[in-house]
């Protein structure tokens, strides 16, 4: 999401390096680059102006601390200001009132319907019973769209039809949701222009009729300077409670995110980061800031893992590993879980230092595809073979390869990797000897990843490289980086 902004900013930060002291001149030069980077990211013009002024004020005349280079110091100042700009503390949805009523508003095509479905899934994970209310009677097939999504999620949906009045729909839905035993209503309103008075009045009427606790503006992360005008208009009329920023998985630099909060004062609460219905995340300003500055976002990764792996299962798994009974069947189960956590690409971006790797992966093959192939290979084995990988002799391997539509070599590569992985896991778990404690899910869940065959590499190369786990690789990168930095100094 913020990746290319971070590229641009690190360019800007280079300007600060090599100075023993920050003076007006070198701050000026560096800040020009910061300004450019932000403008190219579609951050609102006025917001950029204020931002740069504040950073300048804070950075001016500071002596370089013993431990920080001028570059690092300015990064710190920019980081602090970015967090401030993005909204300081993260603010989640207010989920305490029942029945919970959430209203989604926004321009056409910003992603309200998809966000409504994602939000339904999100709320169910929070233990609520969501009820979807399609209130878009204008766009053809908008109601069918939400009905289809609701079916996929198995969430009840209000029986709206295009000839109903949106205000009536929303009013009646409250009773209907109560009858259906649901306690969280999600109003999906029609997309409208903020200057369309008739339709904007309709929103006011819905608000008056249903008094929702949350009114969320759904905004496209790719919006330009106009984002602020739109957000202001909706906010003035409806007094928004927050913003959902969608399509953050593209290469939009998310300038809208920076501007909206600063101009309306309303926090970004959620972000849409992919096409899957699970790809909706709470927004954390501090983490987004570190992501912008290329520092990774380990906390989000851990939380993602936690939602998918419960502690009990993790313990069971760790136990299995400890006794080195982790077999291909377990591996397959783990793999499926990881897939449920969202796209691998998205996950990798969260690992410090991995942002760049994702770019390279994008050029080559998608790891998702590799995962699918691995799954197919394991799927072609009998349960006996999965439990006892050693039993796979040449003829069994040939059969499996035929079944999965791959070559025998590929089956071999998988088995080899799996063997290496189980050994590594045994070492890891054995070394720490505390299964299931600490970060639940992490030790058990993620070791599945190092074994993923051929992350973008061919089947015959990379045997030496794959011995290293992701973690080790990341560490090595970090060391290298540090060394580089030291050299430069």
């Amino acid at each position: 999401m913020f990746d290319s902004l971070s590229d641009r900013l690190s360019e800007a930060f280079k300007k600060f390096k090599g100075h023993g002291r920050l003076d007006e001149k070198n701050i000026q030069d560096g800040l020009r680059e910061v300004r450019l980077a932000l403008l190219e990211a579609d951050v609102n013009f006025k917001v950029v102006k204020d931002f740069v002024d504040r950073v300048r004020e804070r950075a001016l005349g500071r002596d370089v601390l013993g431990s920080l280079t001028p570059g690092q110091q300015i990064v710190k100042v920019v980081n602090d200001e970015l967090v401030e700009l993005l909204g300081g503390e993260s603010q989640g949805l207010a989920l305490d009132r029942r029945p919970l009523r959430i209203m989604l508003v926004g321009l056409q095509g910003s992603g309200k319907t998809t966000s409504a479905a994602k939000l339904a899934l999100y709320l169910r994970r929070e233990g609520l019973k969501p009820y979807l209310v399609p209130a878009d009677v204008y766009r053809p097939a908008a109601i069918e769209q939400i009905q289809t999504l609701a079916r996929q999620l198995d969430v009840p949906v209000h029986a709206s039809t295009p000839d109903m009045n949106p205000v009536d729909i929303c009013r009646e839905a409250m009773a209907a949701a109560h009858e259906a035993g649901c306690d969280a209503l999600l109003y999906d309103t029609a997309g409208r222009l903020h200057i369309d008075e008739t339709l904007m009045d309709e929103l006011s009427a819905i608000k008056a009729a249903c008094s929702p606790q949350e009114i969320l503006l759904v905004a496209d992360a790719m919006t330009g300077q106009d984002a602020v005008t739109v957000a202001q208009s909706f906010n003035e009329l409806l007094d928004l409670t927050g913003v959902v920023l969608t399509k953050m998985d593209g290469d939009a630099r998310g300038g809208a995110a920076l501007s909206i909060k600063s101009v309306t004062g309303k926090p970004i609460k959620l972000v849409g980061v992919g096409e899957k219905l699970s790809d909706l995340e709470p927004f954390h300003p501090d983490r987004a800031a570190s992501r912008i500055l290329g520092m990774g976002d380990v906390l989000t990764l851990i939380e993602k893992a936690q939602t998918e792996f419960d502690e009990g299962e993790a313990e069971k798994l760790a136990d299995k590993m400890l006794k080195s009974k982790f077999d291909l069947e377990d591996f397959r189960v783990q793999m499926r879980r990881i897939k449920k956590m969202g796209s691998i690409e998205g996950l990798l971006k969260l690992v410090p230092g991995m942002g760049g790797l994702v770019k390279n992966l994008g050029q080559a093959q998608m790891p998702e595809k590799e995962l699918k192939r691995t799954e197919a290979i394991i799927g072609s084995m009998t349960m006996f073979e999965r439990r006892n990988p050693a039993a796979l002799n040449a003829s069994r391997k040939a059969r499996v390869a035929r079944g999965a539509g791959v070559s025998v070599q590929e089956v071999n590569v998988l088995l080899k990797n799996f063997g290496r992985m189980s050994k590594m896991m045994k070492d890891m778990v054995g070394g720490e000897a505390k299964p299931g404690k600490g970060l639940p899910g992490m030790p058990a869940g993620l070791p599945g990843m190092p074994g993923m065959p051929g992350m973008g590499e061919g089947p015959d190369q990379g045997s030496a490289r794959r011995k290293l786990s992701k973690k080790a690789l990341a560490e090595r990168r970090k060391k290298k980086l540090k060394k580089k930095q030291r050299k430069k100094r």
Partner: protein
Amino acid sequence: MGFFTKIKKLWKGPGEAAETTPAGPARTEPTPAETAPIQEAATNDWQQDLTLALRQAEPRLSHWLALILKDVDKAGDALWQRLSFLFQALDAPVDEAQKFIQHFKKWLDDLGYQNVSEFRSELQYRLALALDLEDEEDERDRLFLKLSQGMAMTREQIARRIDGLLAAHKTMDERFWEEFEEILIVSDVGMEAAVKLMAKLKARARKAQAADPAEFKDLLRQELEDIFKAPKRIQALNPPEVVMVVGVNGVGKTTTIAKLAHRARMQGRKVLIAAGDTFRAAAIEQLEIWAERVGAGLFAKPEGSDPAAVAFEAVDKAISEGYDLLLLDTAGRLHTKVNLMEELKKIKRVLGKKHPGAPHRSVLVIDATTGQNALSQTKLFNEAVGVDEIILTKLDGTAKGGVMVAVGLQFGLPVSFVGLGEKMEDLRPFSGADFARALVD
């Protein structure tokens, strides 16, 4: 071909003539005089009056329509009579005229419109398309009007700021350019493009030896016209014409396809829409409704089918059933998703294999509210499938679409249409000159 071909031919005469000599009306003259009395034997006074009025009026669609709709304020027999009278007066084939009226009636029924004020502009739009009159001065003015209405918010802001800028500066000095740069950036033109545009403007100013800000508007208008100049292209092709529509999620691809289909229908072409968005929930149903509304054929496969297969079979259907135009919808995709872009390439390959030369045009749809990301979208879609033209949607909000200046400067791709509202008639051919005029005048 279809509908109204004859009229088009007939029309060519007066339309062209109107510019030079008043010979135009003379050619249409005999028709009302001959046909009306024969059929009705001058039973109705209004026909005589109308004949007279039409003959005296300037040969322009808007004038004729004004006469036809005089004293008519609701849809009904009076309107249909008057419309058929107009067609008769223009010597249009009776069956095609009837077809036009039937279609229009059905459309009014579908939407529940009653008053002339509700559908007048749609009627004029349909007549202009059916009679091939969109290029006429008359229609150009309407487009300009629509464009300036749509961009009213934009224009007000930019024009006001430019005016303020011009008033505040006596010469085009550094301060002047700095402020102008700010205006450009606020309009989403972007830093890089703003710098480029200013360099060009400065060169132009030097060449014209203009230092007075009063001349600035002219310079800007000329420059914008140049940027948006569409290159000449070979229009001839092997039918059916295949148009592939691509873009990121939520830019309005499906609605744009409906509007394109409507246009083509009104121009008398037989249109097939292929539902290539097999991913988004209910995308197919949405197109179904549109296809029915605009009277186009639809080819669809169940949700989740391979979009390349949809494309393949749709071309089959288009060829065997003699369609003139195939509009292929595709699922919205973020341009950074490598696998989805590969899917697009495959669709394009399949089209080309099935029907040489297809897709004849790949159209990229861009949302006018998009900021600098539009550059990245254009770049990656262009790399994947070779974009031929851009359609800019949602220009009726407050967004300025300024990023198109950057896209124009960087890629030289023409903008063929702009979306100016939710109505069918709100998709209009784009001209750089009009855009510039609407923007700064």
